[in-house]
């Protein structure tokens, strides 16, 4: 799985050996709980989940609606607070952080790709891509940004505004933005949910490419078995718990596994 490739020095250190890679964890949730409401109306969204997302690995989180997959991602990404347990992102424990620190953490260490409303309509594609660095007041690493842009094939459209781009192109800008600041981890929330299958395949290809070629860590929530098949590993959630895991998934394999849960859910 080690990339063929020329990666920048920093990334090299991450991916020199499989042994090292296996131990390097980008994010880890331990006994993570999230409970809404009190008493009888109490809803357990996450039920003491322990999961690791390893560096330079592409993980998909799957599960039926209401399984807690989005909540898990939001908690690990520092977007949502949790009720119990702990989350470590890189070397940082999120439970202790205030809103301001969480905001800075997201800004500096996390990249996001959402299903829709991903881009600011007033900014050009290029400005959208460098927005996180603008917010942080950092100079973008020009060489790196160019590489990312090359990878997602946007070179010719950098000065267009989102309204002048197709849905697939907009999502490619979003991917580029998530990668451009070299975050420790990129989270995708149904990143292909609003795209046609061809554009979706392209976006997923870029994400997989960024993991293989650039050593990026990517965690993606999806309900689409085909999207999940692009990942290195699939984690299955149901009723707020991790119920299964699959390495080197295929679309059919994931679909079968999902069907099995469905059946189990129905019979139990």
């Amino acid at each position, binding site marked *: 799985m080690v990339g063929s490739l020329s990666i920048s020095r920093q990334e090299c250190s991450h991916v020199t050996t499989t042994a090292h890679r296996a131990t390097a964890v980008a994010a880890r949730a331990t006994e993570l709980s999230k409970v809404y409401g009190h008493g009888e109306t109490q809803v357990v969204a996450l039920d003491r989940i322990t999961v690791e997302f390893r560096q330079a690995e592409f993980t998909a989180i799957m599960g039926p609606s209401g399984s807690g997959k989005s909540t898990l991602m939001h908690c690990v990404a520092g977007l949502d607070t949790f009720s119990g347990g702990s989350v470590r992102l890189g070397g940082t424990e999120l439970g202790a952080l205030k809103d301001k620190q969480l905001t800075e953490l997201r800004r500096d260490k996390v990249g996001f790709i959402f299903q829709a409303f991903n881009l600011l309509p*007033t900014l050009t594609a290029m400005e959208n891509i460098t927005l996180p660095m603008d917010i942080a*007041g950092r100079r973008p690493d020009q060489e790196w940004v160019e590489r990312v842009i090359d990878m997602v094939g946007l070179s010719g459209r950098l000065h267009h505004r989102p309204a002048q781009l197709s849905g697939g192109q907009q999502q490619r800008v979003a991917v580029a*933005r998530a990668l451009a600041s070299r975050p420790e981890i990129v989270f995708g929330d149904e990143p292909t949910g609003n795209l046609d299958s061809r554009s979706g395949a392209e976006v997923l290809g870029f994400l997989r490419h960024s993991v293989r070629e650039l050593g990026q860590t990517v965690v993606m929530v999806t309900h689409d078995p085909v999207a999940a098949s692009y990942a290195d590993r699939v984690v299955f959630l149901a009723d707020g718990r991790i119920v299964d895991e699959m390495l080197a998934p295929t679309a059919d394999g994931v679909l079968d596994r999902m069907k099995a849960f469905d059946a189990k859910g129905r019979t139990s």
Partner: protein
Amino acid sequence: MFRTAVRTVLAHRTRLLMTVLAVMLGVAFVSGTLVFTDTLSNAFRSQSAKSYDDVAVAVTSAGDPGDPEADPGVPQKTLDRIRALDGVAAAYGRVDGFAGVADRDGKLIDGAFGSPKGSNFAPGEDGRDPAYTFTRGSGPLKAGQIALDEGTAGKGAYEVGDRVRVATNGPVRTFTLSGIFTTDDGEVKAGGSLVLFDTAVAQKQYLEEGWFSDVTVVAAPGAGDEELLAAIEPLLPASAEAGTGRELADEQAKEIESGLGALKQVLLGFAGIALFVGVFLISNTFSMLVAQRTKELALMRAVGATRKQITRSVLVEAAVVGAIASAVGFAVGVVLALGLRSGMSAFGMTVPPGPLVVTVTPVAAALAVGVLITMLAAWLPGRRAAKIPPVAAMSSVHAVATTRSLVVRNSVGAVLTAIGAAAIVWGADVGGDDGRIRVAGGAFFALIGIIVLIPLLSRPVIALIRPLLTGPFGVSGKLAGQNAVRNPRRTGATASALTIGLTLVTGLSVLGVTVGQALDRATTDNIKADYMVVMANGGPLDRSALSALEKADGVSAVSPQQAVSLRIGGGGKDGADGKRGPDDYVAASAVTPGAVEQVLRVDVVRGDLGSLAEGRIAVAEKTAAARGWEVGTDVPVTFADHEHGTLTVGAVYEDSEFLSPVVVATEVADAHEAKPYIPQIFVKMDGGGTAANEKVLARALGENPAITMMDHQDIRDQFGGMINLLLNILYGLLAMALLIAVLGVVNTLAMSVFERQQEIGMLRAIGLDRRRVKRMVRLEAVVISLFGALIGVGLGVFLGWAIGQTIRSSIPGYELVLPWDRIALFLVAAGLVGVLASLWPARSAAKLNVLDAIKTD
């Protein structure tokens, strides 16, 4: 349909709150003004009716005391004859004029209303004067006694028996206070001061012994007012007029009402601005509501609502909002009226007590104004709502404002602006009254045109401001700048309030400051004297004041500017020279030869000013040219005492605003005038205008509290005072426009924040902290406000220049002055409007829950 409309209004109550507030403000001003003026005029009406309660007939003399041939008033014997008439219970002769009371420090006790007045105590057979009720002491019966009204005695802390210094036109005299009284006299009730003298003293002072200026007649029981009037009229001298008490009460009430008219107009002006600016806010709110409800409205169309019904539903909503706002506004208006009344007494104006008068007019006006304005403003948004196609219900995207409609809008705006600008420039070129009418018309078109064009202007103007944002405020500033131009129509409508307000205020500030400075320069250039001595009440000075000043220590030059009655042509009433009519008076003044050029600037073109001392006259250049006079010309004249004479032109000088066109020596004039009319005396002193010199003058004038010594600054203030008052009223208007602008900006921002929730959520997710989200919203508000302000300032300066061009010929030394400091202040105020308006929207943007915000639905 009505129910749907009410539901919609309730559902959007927070959004509509600003609209309600804007309408409410306008309505409150309209109804408050009407209730206040109704209440006030009612109070004054009953007040004046009361003061004429006992008066059956009142006689007033229009006699001219300065005219030696005419009767000075009503003689004592006429009064006696009136008293002897059947049906007359009593008749009182009155004589009055200026009388200023000094307080214990020698300062004039200033009546807040009208000038300080003096009159006579006229006791009847019972020893009482029914016009005055003595609370302490009794009326003045001896030459050395006076009585004071309660308010003035209170201000001076005078008690019966105290010595009181009183100034009339002559020198100051000291009297013993014999009593303190109350009266129903309107001016005194309103806070004016009144001194009562013994009748003989008053007559000598104001008229001539044995003469009265007014007579009031009290009827015996059973005698009719009209019959008395008929009996009295034949007894009166030709110069006197008589009327019944009721007629006079009505006349006085009418006078007071017309006096209140000006106040009413100013207050209604405020209301007008509030409503005019409010229209944009209302229209904007409804546009936003319609945009927000595109799907809902499309659904209604899909299920069968006609276009008309959609428009009507929006209008019904507007009517509901307008009615609510009017009701609240009316209540606020009544409170405002009460506040204004107590506010007037806080400023020393005593308003006679009376009930709060709420007639049908203000109620109807409040409702009509509130509801109609709101509906009018909602009409365009309503039409736009009707154009939403039913298919919009199915599509997920918001209807975007088409560029086509902006093209139409821009063309209309450009044409209007061009017409307006052309008319303004044309008017400025023509000048004078004709020019001003053109400028005013042009200003109207240009303002409307600019407001129509404002969406188009938003991009370039905000692009100018933008570098100021991105520099110091980084990414928040950049995003704010871009957000501000996202919806040009909305930004424009929001900024309009500030544009209108600042156009008016900047234009008039430019004009005011320009004219003020021109007058300032003219004063400094033309008045060489250190002091201008005048009466505090604006009346003429006694000649004794002139001689006192001439004798004062350290005075180097003194000259009066004395009004002289001089008729050109010596041949009696027909005009012997045959050229000019009998009424060919020239504006002439008498000055002291040798001193006048030391106290005023006189640029002699030809001849010698010194020849004034030889009895010659000096003439201004334009007058000399018009009449064909030259140095040496003999001019036949008729003096005030109808004597004929010939005056020779000794000098010709350049026209000056501070010098009459014809000048003679005081000796020449005084020979023919019984009582010289001296409005002002100019004094130049060794050492200039110092506090010590001022004291010397005051002592020389006998510490007369009624005489004021004005130094250069005072003179400038006197001329500038009116301008400053006017500007201050206008700044009140600006405050009004700013207030409405705040509401408008709040409204727009709240809507923008609401629409951009997902975007803000995304920004928060990728690392924009709350502080910078707040800053982004705040800066957007500031940008919109500054944009409106810049356009307003630009248009205002243009208008100020144009109006200035039309009056430049009538103002000496006119030169356009741009009050940069004030303009900067206006812009800062506009920026503050933005900051203030963004407080709440920025907070709610920063408080957005990231997860809720990015959820797609």
